């Protein structure tokens, strides 16, 4: 599906620009986009380096295990195929907590760390596991308690009550998250023990990330 969306955006963009007689906009947009991709990746370095260091301290001190135990039932329901004492659960929990508190720049490194742990359980290193899909479902719909950025913007434009959208946002984000988890469950149940699992395993790639 990602292939279809990628080619869709490129082709429709090309046609729309051509129809308006400004095809040169495509060339400019291509290099703008490429630059954004690199800039964002480089911007992530500082955040990743810091939080991965912090997370290693938490891991070594046994904090992640305690966190995973604390919220165990929820995580076990969402990630039934991850072993109970696996380090992935601690990272998943810290990723979910950071999202909840609206700490976006801490949530991403923790989420990626969780993905790396889930990857260790993956027989086929190029294909996502159901647990990875669940983690992404939670992250793309991301329950946030306080949309801090939006409140700040509304304040800037002299809103009478900048925080009045906290309630509506919380409701909408909960609906979106429930939909994501339900859809994830549905797809997961459909792909349970499919014949091609064996096939994937026999094709597994030995290399790491």
């Amino acid at each position: 599906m990602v292939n279809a969306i990628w080619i869709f955006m490129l082709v429709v963009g090309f046609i729309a620009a051509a129809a308006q007689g400004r095809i040169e906009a495509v060339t400019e947009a291509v290099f703008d986009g490429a630059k954004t991709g690199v800039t964002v990746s480089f911007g992530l370095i500082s955040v990743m380096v810091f939080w991965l260091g912090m997370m290693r301290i938490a891991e070594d001190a046994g904090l992640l295990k305690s966190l995973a135990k604390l919220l165990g039932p929820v995580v076990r329901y969402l990630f039934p195929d991850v072993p109970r004492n696996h380090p992935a659960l601690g990272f998943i929990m810290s990723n979910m907590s950071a999202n909840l508190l609206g700490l976006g720049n801490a949530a991403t490194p923790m989420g990626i760390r969780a993905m790396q742990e889930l990857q260790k359980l993956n027989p086929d290193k190029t294909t996502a596991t159901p647990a990875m899909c669940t983690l992404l479902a939670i992250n793309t719909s991301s329950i946030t308690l306080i949309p801090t950025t939006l409140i700040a913007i509304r304040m800037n434009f002299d809103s009478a009550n900048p925080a009045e959208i906290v309630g509506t946002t919380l409701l909408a984000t909960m609906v979106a998250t429930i939909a994501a988890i339900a859809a994830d469950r549905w797809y997961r149940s459909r792909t349970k023990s499919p014949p091609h699992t064996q096939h994937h395993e026999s094709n597994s790639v030995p290399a790491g990330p």
Partner: protein
Amino acid sequence: MYAFLTTISTWAIPAIIVFIPLYAYMKRVPVYESFVEGAKDGFQTSINIIPTLVGMMVAISVFRASGAMDWLVGLMRPLLDWFGIPSEVMPLAFLRPITGAGSLAFTTDLIKTYGPDSLIGRIASTIQGSTDTTLYVLTVYFGAIGIRKGRYALKVGLFSDIVGFVAAIIICMLIFV
């Protein structure tokens, strides 16, 4: 309630950053060495994301700059008018899943043009805050660990974006109208 939540939000990071090393130090973890050991992976992980992110950003950039989105929104306008939904917020349905910065800029512009306390301003704020940028999250998370086949993850993400978008509009129209 809001003041309480904001306080938690501002205190969370500083508190975590002091608590983790302090707790670990008392457990006799060599905190600084641990930090450096973990931090080592940060650079490589970020670099791993570049190819997937550049690929995705190029397509998004072409799609946005070409004016293709305005054309798609135009197609949907009659349907929205029929429901009494302000069609000004419609571009967010396309922007929100593909670009966080782009949709935030668009939301800011709507708030600026129509006012933060207008229905359009409120709906836009709610949409912006209710989901994350699906394409970005997928690209970064899968890109970092080298997953090329994402299975149904994208479908689930986009489905929840649609649900979140519709829910935001319905909830705002019920509460604010």
